[in-house]
């Protein structure tokens, strides 16, 4: 038998040649996944339209950096869970094993399955405002009725959401192999597109931007002296912005719960890590998610600084405030990259730039359902869901039933989202429900050393210490602080549009549905003679 000695001249470990002993995987791919999940283009810039006007005294850069630091502890906590219980299913597996089957199912079903139905129309809306609207506007297309503005109508939002759902379904059906390749190229293309924007904004003056903006706005939208008109319109609406700076801290902290809309997801691939050999390598797992998160933070700061330098901070915020007040300056969402493209007076260039930057969307859209299908699989293997939920068609390798469980409700919710302007304001519900799931995973990591002492002792996470203190549970406590703060703000401050009665009913209904599903599963399985309570019961050792 072939063996390998580890530890140099005085070996500390001998490995014999056996199945599954593989080398560590490339961290680069994990970084790309984390970076696309915390997508500063599709999610970040989209969120700024809301966050800036809602909290005008808050400082974006300060909030982004505070969020980045705080979420880094979530990354440590999740890396700890991943290396301790490296299983496909992520939060579902950890919570069911550490906190209990019922709680784990409810948290995972709401946070990784049901709430993704709401994310579908949000993704659709982002596709509308970052691809269709600017593309139609740039090309001057007037079909369908209203041209670019049609995509912001109820029908427009619904149609584009359906396109998004189909697209996400196809990408999941292609399988991870094809999608990983697509993601990689989308990431590279998206970064090139952003680099072009950086060059444009860095090497053009503010005056040059103003004149370009006025010229193109007149050409495409027939608005005269648009730059000045935007500022006047915002002032008239009573909006006053603060200059870009770093304080005050209190008001900037209020932006943190809004920043979670994009910065809370470096661990989005967590449900996939379970399938990786060598996942018990804390450093690799941590580095992938952490680097992805901080690339996003750095890109965001670069973007915000360039907006201040060339576009004008007050103007950028005024554009956002007009959209926030449902009176967007050009009748469409103010896409900053479209305005950056206006610095080059060439339609072909502007179109190409919009298309290249849309790669941030296409590399990301597959994340909509991919992780959810893994959670559905895990719940089906535990017999909580019917066996069919985990079936994969032999011919096409498509997880048909789990996709149906994702797609059909998403279509229904897309209709509600598209045709109810009020429902559309519940965007942050999508973040809140997942944050609750994360909260319970953070609790799980904190109590892990007591609940599963053997597992903890055997975990590489238990040996990551600072001044003798294991940092993984401590990071769990800090994560609970972050999520607790965000939940408190979301539920107590109406500026986040989350704590209205209907929004709470909507979210509450998801938890009720999950509880009902679990109870029904227990009853049905008991009748079948299957005790779901046995799934995670530990066999005595002695």
């Amino acid at each position: 038998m072939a063996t390998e000695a580890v530890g140099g001249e005085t070996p500390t470990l001998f490995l014999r040649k056996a199945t599954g002993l593989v080398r560590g995987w490339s961290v680069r791919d994990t970084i790309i996944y984390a970076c696309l999940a915390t997508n500063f283009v599709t999610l970040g810039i989209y969120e700024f339209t809301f966050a800036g006007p809602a909290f005008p005294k808050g400082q974006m850069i300060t909030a982004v950096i505070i969020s980045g630091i705080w979420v880094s502890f979530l990354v440590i906590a999740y890396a700890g869970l991943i290396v301790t219980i490296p299983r496909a299913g992520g939060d579902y597996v950890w919570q069911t094993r550490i906190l209990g089957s019922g709680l784990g199912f409810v948290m995972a079903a709401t946070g990784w399955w049901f709430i993704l139905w709401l994310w579908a129309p949000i993704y659709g809306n982002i596709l509308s405002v970052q691809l269709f609207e600017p593309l139609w506007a740039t090309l001057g297309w007037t079909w369908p009725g209203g041209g670019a503005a049609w995509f912001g109508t109820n029908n427009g939002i619904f149609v584009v959401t359906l396109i998004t759902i189909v697209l996400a379904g196809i990408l999941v059906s292609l399988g991870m192999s094809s999608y990983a390749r697509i993601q990689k190229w989308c990431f590279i293309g998206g970064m090139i597109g952003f680099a072009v924007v950086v060059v444009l904004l860095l090497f053009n003056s503010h005056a040059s931007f103003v004149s370009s903006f006025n010229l193109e706005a007149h050409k495409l939208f027939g608005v005269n002296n648009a730059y000045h008109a935007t500022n006047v319109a915002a002032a008239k609406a009573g909006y006053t912005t603060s200059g870009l700076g770093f304080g005050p801290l209190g008001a900037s902290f209020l932006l943190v719960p809004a920043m979670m809309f994009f910065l809370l997801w470096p661990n989005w691939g967590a449900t996939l890590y379970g399938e990786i050999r060598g996942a018990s390598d804390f450093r690799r797992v941590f580095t992938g998610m952490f680097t992805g998160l901080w690339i996003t933070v750095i890109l965001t700061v670069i973007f915000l600084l360039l907006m201040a330098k060339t576009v004008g901070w007050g103007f950028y915020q005024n554009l956002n405030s007009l959209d926030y007040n449902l009176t967007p300056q050009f009748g469409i969402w103010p896409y900053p990259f479209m305005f950056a493209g206006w610095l080059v007076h060439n339609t072909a260039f502007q179109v190409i730039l919009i298309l290249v930057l849309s790669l941030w969307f296409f590399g990301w859209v597959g994340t909509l359902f991919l992780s959810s299908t893994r959670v559905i699989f895990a719940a089906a293997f535990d017999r909580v869901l019917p066996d069919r939920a985990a079936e994969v068609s032999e011919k096409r390798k498509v997880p048909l039933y789990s996709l149906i469980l994702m797609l059909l409700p998403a279509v229904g919710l897309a209709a509600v989202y598209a045709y109810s302007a009020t429902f559309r304001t519940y965007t942050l519900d999508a973040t809140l429900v997942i944050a609750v799931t994360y909260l319970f995973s953070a609790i799980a990591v904190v109590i892990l050393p007591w609940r599963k002492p053997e597992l903890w002792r055997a975990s590489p996470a238990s040996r990551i210490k600072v001044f003798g203190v294991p940092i993984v549970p401590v990071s769990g406590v800090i994560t609970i602080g972050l999520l607790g703060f965000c939940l408190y703000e979301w539920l107590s401050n109406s500026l986040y549009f989350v704590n209205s009665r209907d929004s709470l009913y909507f979210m509450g209904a998801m938890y009720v549905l999950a509880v009902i599903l679990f109870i029904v599963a227990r009853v049905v399985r008991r009748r079948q003679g299957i005790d779901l309570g046995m799934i995670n019961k530990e066999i005595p050792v002695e």
Partner: protein
Amino acid sequence: MKVFFATDIHGSEVCWRKFLNAAAFYKVDMVVLGGDVTGKAMVPIVAHPGGRWQVTVRGQAYTLESEQELEEIKKQIRNAGSYPAMVSPDELQEMSKTEGAVDRRFTVEMTQSLDRWLDMADGKLRGGDIPCILNGGNDDIWEIDDIIEQSPCVSFGEGKMLDLDGFSLVSMGWTNPTPWDTFREAPEPELAAKIETVVSQIPDMERAIFNFHAPPYGTGLDEAPALDGNLRPMHGGAVMKPVGSTAVRDAILQHQPMLSVHGHIHESRAVKKMGRTLAINPGSVYGDGVLQGAVLDLNPKKGKVAKYLLVNG
């Protein structure tokens, strides 16, 4: 009849102890371990004069000062699926330099460990009152076969048809080729021939159970990370590909036993209905000290699996 099936415990002593207790815990009539019983790693514990030992476990170096500490670390190593190897500094140097020395020591540790395990089994399985079937897997050395054969309370299943209360269980630990070139590997046509040899002994396919270490190809029971030429997972490890056996798949589809249990691909915990056959891979997380398995309730009248539950014991 109720059966508990687990697989791929790879030397984890805590999983073995749990396996032995599974019959009482799940109230089953029989326990089956589907192969890959032996561990993959050996941890040298270097003994120094004066009752001091040095060992590195999971990258952390320890100096042990008492027998109690030594026993505790040995237990940790065994529970993780590795073999503690007591050596002197000179022995360690010799082992590193002499060709084949590590292999020989590995074999000694594996066989001694298995002997100890089988002694434990005698007490737990009431001297054979509870049927226990063990099988080799592709990672298991040949030396284990005779040791299991000689055990009074454990039956060695490899290549045999065992009659279990009206059910026929056939076992095979061979797999299709892997990138690691392990012990019991054979090309698909050869594997198909081996399967036919063992399956031909079955009198009634309606009450047949296949216990084949290799999972059937392309069924979801055989998804492993795609690897590049250097055995590194591709695309961040998120890309999976089927690596099971086409011979096993074809045999199941052709013969349609009531149940087919598999292992080999630890991360591919899954259940698949293949015609009338229920195919199961309970997966393995032996490194965590958790014994994954399947509790199977077999209906002898109908010749089918009445119910099943995948458990994390």
